[in-house]
């Protein structure tokens, strides 16, 4: 894990990207609202809540981006 000039460890040294999903009402589908980078799920939850809490979501969830199974990606179909 890398250290900054101030001596503390940086999050991004061995961090994982998490996708953040949320919805405003039960009838809405969950949709992607952004992503956060963190070394573990605890910190990712704290970051997701801090970063995307501007709106009144009734549900928010995070998923490791690496765990998303993509059938195809842009430009591959």
């Amino acid at each position, binding site marked *: *894990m890398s250290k*900054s000039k*101030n*001596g*503390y*460890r*940086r*999050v*991004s040294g061995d961090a994982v990207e998490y996708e953040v999903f949320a919805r405003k009402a039960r009838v809405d589908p969950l949709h992607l609202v952004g992503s*956060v*980078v*963190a*070394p*573990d799920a*605890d*910190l990712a*939850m*704290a*970051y997701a*809540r*801090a*970063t995307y*809490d501007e709106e009144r979501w009734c549900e928010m969830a995070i998923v490791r981006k690496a765990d998303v199974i993509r059938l195809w990606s842009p430009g591959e179909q």
Partner: protein
Amino acid sequence: MSLSDLVLSLADNKQMLGLRYAEWATRAPSLEADIAAAAMGLDDLGHSRVLYGCLEPLGYDPRTPARESDPATIRNLAYFDEPWTEWSQFVAANAVLDTAFTAVIEACVNGSVEVLRQRLRKMLMEERYHFLHGRSWLRSGIEGAPLLRAWQEALEFFGPPGSDVEGLSMGPEQMRTRLEEQLETKAPDVVIHWNLWDPLRRRAAEGAIDDHTFAMLRGLEEKKYAPPSAPPPARVR
């Protein structure tokens, strides 16, 4: 030591914690941590407002006019007297002190005083994310000195053994156990000079917040940026 005295100390500490968090909103190790510092700062400043608002319903407001002139009347822990210069100080406060304050809030929410049971409940939901943030950073490893100091001051904040405050569901010993459970570790061996402990400020150390922070609390810093030609604010009767 009345419940109002404890609530005022909790409010002052939450206010100072929020200010110190906010000071790191552009200095944390990553953009996400910057945003989290700002968000947690806003949360804790909001919590302090709610706590100040509980004093009047509790029937006794210990705040005196001396709070406008004497920084030693602000009932904060010594940990917040000066701005933090190291990220490890932020993490130790976030993991240990913020969680210690949450233990006291839990004791209020589960206690017998209705105004605290109702008004403080929402804080526990917000504090969950402060805890996750602090615990994760703590696990990544920080220097020992700030951590030891945070533990010492957390135990001082809980108060001496047997000094239970009426209306709370937990006393100092139970709060200590709760903090240890949350952080999944035993409290370190620290020497607390209870003979020097101030029951109002809930600390053994002398001292007070720095002049700049005290001026900010009183709104004097804002006045520096007011236009020189601005008329004095109208009196509200």
